[in-house]
């Protein structure tokens, strides 16, 4: 029941849009920044699928390898074993068709708001009039039409993150990779951003992989929540969220929501399953 990757192992001819199969990542001692002598197993045999247009959250304790998985899906770093297929492509290098949102807005201070949004179009050599118009529309969608010519440092953290969201959407990517994008925001702004993300997803039809530490955020947003265990990260549980869209903040107070929260908490190990003995460490 809680071994979903056994299912995905049995070959299905009708493949999902995104398919992560038995992906492992071991950072060898020599690799990059690692100063420790021992190799680090960041991902251990992680598997899950998602359909086009689905929003899937990756939930797990800090350091369990969620960012590493996103980087592998993006083709930024090589995996040690396993396969990642997005659309029709086996990912071995960046496909150039992803939107990226990081925990920090990571805007370029030397660019105005609109030029930050247009950065991907410049790289893709598609920075034409239509792109500028789309950038304007996106900024309007996130409520920043008055700040088109502003510099990032003139915006609040939440506003900067909305610019980062527009930058991730400007080239109409098929897949959005979001790494704790709202983690640094206050609760209220975060809820607004959640609703904004759901609206954008509805309007663009993009698939989203969404990393978060927040159980309720994961459930509120997702079609499916993938819960990772402690490092080395394995998929501890796949939790389908059967709450109907469009969701609103009221959804948080439905029994189905609470039920999903309980299941996720148990999967994370923050809630001891069944009996009340033993407190979580």
């Amino acid at each position, binding site marked *: 029941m809680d071994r979903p990757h056994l299912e995905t192992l049995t070959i299905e001819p009708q493949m999902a849009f995104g398919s992560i199969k038995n992906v492992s990542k071991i950072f060898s001692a020599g690799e990059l920044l690692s100063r420790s002598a021992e190799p680090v197993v960041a991902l251990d045999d992680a598997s899950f699928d998602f359909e086009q247009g689905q929003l899937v959250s990756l939930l797990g304790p800090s350091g369990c390898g969620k960012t590493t998985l996103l980087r592998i899906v993006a083709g930024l770093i090589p995996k040690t074993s396993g396969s990642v297929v997005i659309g029709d492509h086996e990912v071995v290098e960046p496909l150039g068709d992803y939107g*990226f949102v990081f925990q920090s807005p*990571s805007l370029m201070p*030397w660019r105005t708001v609109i030029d930050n949004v247009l950065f*991907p179009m410049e790289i893709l050599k598609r920075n034409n009039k239509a792109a500028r118009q789309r950038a304007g529309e996106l900024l309007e969608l996130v409520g920043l039409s008055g700040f088109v010519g502003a510099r990032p440092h003139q915006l609040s953290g939440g506003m900067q993150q909305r610019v980062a969201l527009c930058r991730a959407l400007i080239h109409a990517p098929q897949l959005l990779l979001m790494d704790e994008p709202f983690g640094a925001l206050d609760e209220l702004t975060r809820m607004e951003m959640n609703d904004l993300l759901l609206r954008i997803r509805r309007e663009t039809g993009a698939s989203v992989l969404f990393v978060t530490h927040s159980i309720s955020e994961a459930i509120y947003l997702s079609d499916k929540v993938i819960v990772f265990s402690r490092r080395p990260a394995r998929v501890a549980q796949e939790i389908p969220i059967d709450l109907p869209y469009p969701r609103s903040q009221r959804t948080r107070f439905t029994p189905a929501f609470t039920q999903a929260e309980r299941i996720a908490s148990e999967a994370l190990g923050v809630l001891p399953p069944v009996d009340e003995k033993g407190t979580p460490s």
Partner: protein
Amino acid sequence: MMSRLVAQIGYPLAGVAFILAAWVFVCWAGNLPTVVLPTPDKVFYAFIARFDLLVSEGWVTLKETLYGFLLALVIGLPMAVAVANSRPLNLMFYPLLIGLQSVPKVALAPIVLVWLGTGMESKLAIVWLVAFFPIIVDTVAGLRSTPRELLELADSLRASRLQIFLKVQFPAALPFVITGAKVAITLAVIGAVIGEFVGSSEGLGFLLLSATSQLDTPLAFAALFALSVLGMFVYLLVELAERLAAPWLPPPSQRH
């Protein structure tokens, strides 16, 4: 409004007035002869009377300073790019550069003079020597500290190396380059003067030295004053370049 004016102009003026008063007091109380310490008015008189001389000698020093500084930029920036982007070059030269940075380069001035003579070339070499290191070291540091997210963003879009350099790495390093350039221009003035001290027949450093040896202390002080003005002028030039090249940085006056 009024109080801000007082704060911004009044206080600095009061500071200058205080120093002048202290200067006059020392001259008067110590009964010092002009050769030892001329009173401010004598210095001022010398400055006005020998203004043409100060300007022509100052022009020489200014050229040495700016040319040497530009040479340091022109050579330092490409070398910084090479050292920052090539792992072998970085391993070979970065520790060396850091080590050499703390060597007092002006101590090489006499040797440089032996090599290049007393003309403009030796001054350029000395100025270059002192200005080069802060520029290359700071630029390398800047180029190597590009935020990881921005590099990943560019990578995920399959940006070319040239695109990454021009659109991400270099602009992100620009504040570092500017910091290095500000240190470099200050050192460049010192380098020019040292070069002139060691062996020269023109420039404010030479004037300072010859005026002192002729016991014309007021002129020496006037030359010193001219040097300060020159130093401030070239520093402001760099700040102006900063405002043009990096208008997104907060103005220097708001940074402290």
